[in-house]
């Protein structure tokens, strides 16, 4: 049984590498993520219990459950290929970095790949505990006092994982652990570009921590660029 599984895995790796070697050029999917309606008003965070963090923010930080840009742009949306692209046989060698600064997670949403090194740093003058809450991956919880070097972790299954710090209850973040390298996290203008897609039929998905996920089917032929836009319905609460 194990041998058979090994054989299938080997075959899958071969097929995957064959597809990968189709070349770096290919089609591109680009587009914009927006919202319609009225998003929830973000509340200012009271950091008075942690003076070393409070003084880093001239104006109080607000919650980040919905972050918007100009022209209804929606930030912090993970756009990724959920089906059609082969799983990456090996994760990228450079680590995905997650920082704690001013009692805030930077970035708020960190996209990384399965088995990619996740490097977590504490730039604050206070202790944090990093407590991701996965459902299918392993759950761990580590203390990181000020001045300790960054530590590394990995996730071996794809999952969207909320992250919190129990000591500072306002700190919330997310890890998006994805199966392949075709992903983007939207910023200010809400735009995204997924380049180097070999011809084929893809399911492209967009995930937002408050508004859930949605998917569209896209077929890429040659080196064309297709436009795909996502519109999330904003909830006022």
């Amino acid at each position: 049984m194990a041998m058979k599984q090994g054989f299938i895995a080997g075959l899958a790796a071969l097929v995957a590498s064959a597809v990968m070697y189709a070349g770096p050029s290919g089609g591109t999917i680009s587009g914009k993520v927006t919202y319609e309606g009225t998003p929830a008003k973000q509340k200012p965070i009271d950091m008075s219990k942690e003076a070393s963090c409070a003084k880093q923010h001239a104006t109080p930080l607000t919650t980040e459950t919905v972050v918007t840009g100009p022209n209804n742009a929606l930030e912090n949306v993970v756009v990724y290929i959920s089906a059609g692209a082969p799983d990456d046989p090996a994760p990228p060698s450079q680590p995905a970095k997650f920082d704690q600064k001013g009692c805030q997670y930077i970035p708020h949403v960190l996209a990384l790949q399965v088995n990619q090194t996740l490097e977590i740093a504490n730039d604050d003058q206070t202790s944090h505990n990093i407590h991701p809450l996965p459902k299918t991956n392993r759950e761990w919880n580590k203390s990181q006092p000020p001045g300790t070097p960054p530590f590394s972790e990995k996730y071996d299954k794809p999952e969207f994982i909320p992250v919190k710090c129990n000591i500072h209850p306002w700190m919330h973040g997310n890890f998006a652990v994805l199966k392949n390298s075709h992903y983007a996290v939207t910023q200010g203008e809400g735009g995204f570009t997924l380049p180097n897609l070999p011809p084929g039929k893809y399911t492209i998905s967009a995930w937002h921590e408050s508004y859930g996920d949605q998917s569209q089917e896209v077929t890429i032929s040659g080196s064309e660029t297709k436009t795909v836009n996502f519109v999330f319905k904003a909830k006022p609460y």
Partner: protein
Amino acid sequence: MLTTKLAKFCLSIAAVLTIPAFSNAQQMESHIGNLNGHSDAGKQLYFRYCWGCHGFRGDGDGENGPYLNILPRNFVAATFKCRSTPTGNLPTDEDLYNSLVRGLNNSNMPSWIALSSQQRADLVAFIKTFSPRWKNEKASDTIAVPAETPVTVESIKHGQELFQKLECWKCHGQEGRGDGPSAATLTDSNDQPIRPYNFTAGSRFKCGATNQDLYKIFMTGLDGTPMPSFADVIKPNDAWDLVHFLRTLQVAHNSPELTLWKSTKEGAEQVASKTVHGTPTGSGIK
């Protein structure tokens, strides 16, 4: 002709009968010292003693679950508080066995000391059938607990500094009463409110009563709760100093650490301020 048909029919019947039997035969063993537990035997015990809380599927969704303050463990997720392994790893068979012997203080999990040791070993084996993690993950190394350093006033004082520096007080409170600034906001991984341990109240620790157990609690962290692991940030000697200081917070327990601490002027004042006089009903208050 008829015989081949009959043979085919028999074969198909055999196939139907064997397939479910095969897929159900998830066998597990446990090894605790000389004890070897078997999941088949544990299954009978589980469906007599455990499933009322831990559920038919082992997911902690038993009939009694909703009435319990700390929800029953979900064996499918296999996140366990009391371990000797680093955070994020499965416990050892012995860890699970010890939890059965001890019960979990401040929760509804009783001690199963009334069962035989063989029965407890069998239960440990059966609990491991609920999550594929027991098959798929390699057993991790346990956290080494080096020989305890001598209990001295310097050690206790250094432990007190660490309690400040590592910000244990953010949850456990400056006096160890479990009333630190973050205490009120804490939730466990089931989104249920959870209280940090109150050292002064007199209850035992959740994961064992010895100094070695206490050492392990903050080194491994209690997975599924806000209590993180400090394994990467505390050196062994410092960890023992912290253990010695934490003992002095337990003013209701007569430990060697507390006796020594009370013999110093500073310690005596601290302990006196923490000792509870009288009872909640008011009797015995001077």
